[in-house]
């Protein structure tokens, strides 16, 4: 029996993906749940497994095609596996999904009312990654007209699929320079990262305040207890976990940094989902340590280590990255001394950690050498005033420089 392999739910507010790579090709045998294709979304790359064992049949969405949730990716011809029970009827394609651009003939596209899209509407929908079901149709029987789609695009606020390109056309390079240039299309992930960065900059009144922290207390603590910690928990003792704990304490003291602006309201989150930025070959992803306020250091470190592993293998899911209230980013691993991180919308604060460098500092009127790290807090000045931001960062410094404060809660 032939089954359709379709695009699964991709995560909150993610409507479409690009087919990045076919892991299996037509004719290959696949086992049930074996990954057959890699999809790249706004935020992550994810694998789609075969719904049953069999042979991969016709590939409907080729590499590079843009597909929506529920769209057909390929046909799977169920193999003869007498022991396995026959699967349920083939998954239905969601009626609201347009066929991918590289599809076979007879791709009937559907609107919310299941009517074919007219040629102009189809083009606009595909070129702009629109979901026809989300557009109001004023044509006969509720069909979408070109006018409907144009009006929808004009009225829609900037989405991740909105333009990334700069408005000004590129200056024509001189011929001798042009010959040496190489034009490479941006990956979908990069396009979305680019758009989100600009959205953050264009929305928040964003600025950065700095401080520096003496890491000696943390480093001593680590030197003293790392082996015991690893033996007890099977996970490495790093610095990030301590910064997470420190951040949570500071967020409790300065709730505005853990809040979000929605229209003219401020939403105070009474939970702490700390995003921990991890670099991957495709770009930065920020998985979230959920409810970190209820976790101990070991649990946090373990979670962070797991994120690191999965990120390197491209296995961070959109769900992993949803719902963060505050983010910590560590540029120090790459050697950054000081930087101004960009907010992770819709959050209002982001902590930047940097490289630890021994520097001469003055303590009790003596010049001593200490392992110092610059800290940066970029924040949304619309709801966090300068005093709060500075105090927040100073609080983190205080907690990290004397970890006993974390135990005591002072």
């Amino acid at each position, binding site marked *: 029996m032939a089954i359709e392999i379709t695009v699964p739910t991709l995560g909150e507010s993610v409507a479409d993906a690009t087919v990045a790579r076919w892991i299996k090709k037509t004719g290959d045998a696949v086992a049930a749940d074996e990954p057959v294709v890699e999809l790249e979304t706004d935020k992550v790359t994810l694998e789609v497994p075969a719904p049953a064992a069999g042979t991969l049949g016709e590939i409907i969405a080729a590499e590079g095609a843009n597909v929506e949730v529920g769209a057909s990716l390929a046909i799977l011809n169920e193999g003869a596996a007498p022991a396995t029970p026959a699967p349920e009827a083939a998954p239905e394609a969601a009626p609201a999904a347009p066929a991918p651009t590289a599809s076979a003939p007879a791709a009937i596209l559907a609107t919310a009312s299941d009517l074919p899209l007219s040629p*102009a*509407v189809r083009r606009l929908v595909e070129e702009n990654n629109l979901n026809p079901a989300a557009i109001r149709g004023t044509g006969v029987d509720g069909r979408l007209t070109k006018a409907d789609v*144009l009006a929808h695009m004009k009225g829609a606020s900037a989405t991740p699929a909105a333009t990334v390109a700069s408005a000004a056309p590129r200056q024509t390079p001189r011929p001798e320079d042009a010959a040496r240039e190489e034009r490479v299309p941006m990956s979908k992930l990069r396009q979305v990262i680019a758009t989100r960065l600009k959205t953050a900059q264009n929305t928040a009144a964003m600025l950065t305040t700095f401080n520096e922290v003496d890491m000696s207390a943390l480093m001593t603590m680590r030197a003293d207890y790392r082996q015991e910690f690893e033996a007890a928990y099977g996970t490495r003792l790093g610095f990030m976990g301590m910064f997470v704990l420190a951040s949570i304490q500071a967020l409790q003291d300065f709730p505005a940094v853990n809040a979000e602006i929605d229209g003219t309201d401020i939403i105070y989150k009474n939970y702490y989902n700390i995003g921990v930025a991890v670099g991957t070959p495709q770009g930065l992803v920020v998985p979230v340590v959920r409810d970190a306020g209820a976790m101990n250091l070991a649990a946090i470190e373990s979670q962070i280590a797991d994120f690191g592993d999965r990120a390197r293998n491209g296995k961070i899911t959109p769900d992993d990255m949803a719902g963060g209230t505050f983010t910590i980013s560590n540029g120090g691993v790459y050697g950054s001394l000081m930087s101004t991180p960009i907010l992770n919308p819709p959050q209002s604060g982001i902590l930047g950690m940097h490289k630890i460098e021994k520097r001469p500092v003055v303590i009790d009127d003596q010049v001593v050498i200490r392992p110092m790290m610059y800290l940066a807090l970029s924040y949304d000045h619309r709801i966090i005033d300068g005093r709060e931001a500075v105090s927040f960062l100073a609080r983190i410094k205080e907690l990290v420089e004397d970890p006993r404060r974390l135990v005591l809660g002072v």
Partner: protein
Amino acid sequence: MSETAFDLIVIGAGPGGYVAAIRAAQLGMKVACVDRRESLGGTCLNVGCIPSKALLNASEHYAEAAGGGLAALGISVGSVKLDLPKMMQGKDEIVGSLTGGIDFLFKKNKVTRLQGQARIDGPGKVTLTDGKDKGSYTAEKILIASGSHASSLPGIEIDETRIVSSTGALALPKVPKKLIVIGAGYIGLELGTVWARLGAEVEVIEFLPRILPGMDDEIAKKFMAIAKKQGLKFRLKTAVKAASSGKSGVTLTVAPADGGDEETIKADVALVAVGRHPATDGLGLEEAGVAMTGRGRIRVDARFETSVEDIYAIGDVIDGPMLAHKAEEDGVAAVEIMAGQAGHVDYELVPGIVYTAPEVATLGKSEEALKEAGIAYNKGSFPFSANSRARAQGHADGFVKILADAETDRVLGVHIIGHEAGTIIHECATAMAFGASSEDIARTCHGHPTLNEAVKEAALAVDGRAIHM
């Protein structure tokens, strides 16, 4: 004993009436359709659309053969003679078979056919006089579809011999040496071209400074240039003051429309084609209390009901263009509404077609209408001289023009001069019925080589990206 009580009596068996009657029968009503003519089909089938199209076709063939048009195809004909009585007989046979066809449709749908002059004698009462089926009849509902008559001008009396209406012009006994057509609307132009092809010298006199009133200006201008090349002469901005006919011909007194010296012109036949007026006399409308509009048409509401309950009216007797297809739409809608369904006519999408050669077809708004309404539009034109099928057929005159909303690209008007324009325009009618944009038409596959490709190219031209131009 024949039936006298019906659910619906339709007065008039023209395109509006007979179509309404058949639709009503389909919807389960017991229907009778009255007409004072012996044959069904009204003006359209008997003395209008059908005979004129038959003569247009026959005369076009004659002109091609007699005018040397076949030589270029490598076909040489000897001397070509016209047997006018035979041509007229051919026309009559076509008319006869089509009117007989409606008889068949009536029988098939069990519509009772009544012949006589109808008069409304009270609510639900219709009395027939002067015909085979004279007598009294009753019906729950009455639908007036009595059509229209050719109009004339003050001082001009139609005798259907020297001074003719379209009716007489379709049955002239011989080809006039000179034919004057009064009125440059579609009827005058069609019949003018028939006789011009058959050898008459044709002069068209028109009161307005343009021909084809109501049509897009560019279309009217360009068609007039084509008609002139075919030998028709035009006198615009000219009023006809009087006409008198004698044994040898007609004498017309004309003067410039905005005043000036009168002039006398002579012709063998004068065709009065200045318009038509609703045929409402003799129906007893005034006594029945049926209200009229200021322009002599029957006043109806959105349900096609007149001021008198259960009396309805459609077609040429009510407002709107006096076109057979408009009457048909009216008739179907009215009857569907009577049956409790939702009948609807989109008057914005009634095509206007002139069956000359080349044909003229228009649908939707003209450029002037859009300008007057302040609607910004984009325009795409494509000439048939660049259409391979038109060139292969030797019909390279004319062009397609598409007008689309500047903001939404919705097609607002389509205007065509060309061979088969009246057929081609219907792809646009369907598209416009669905609110299509010019891009939708441009992105629909059109067979090659067809005349319709000119429509696709005109749609591309709206966006400045025609391929074959």
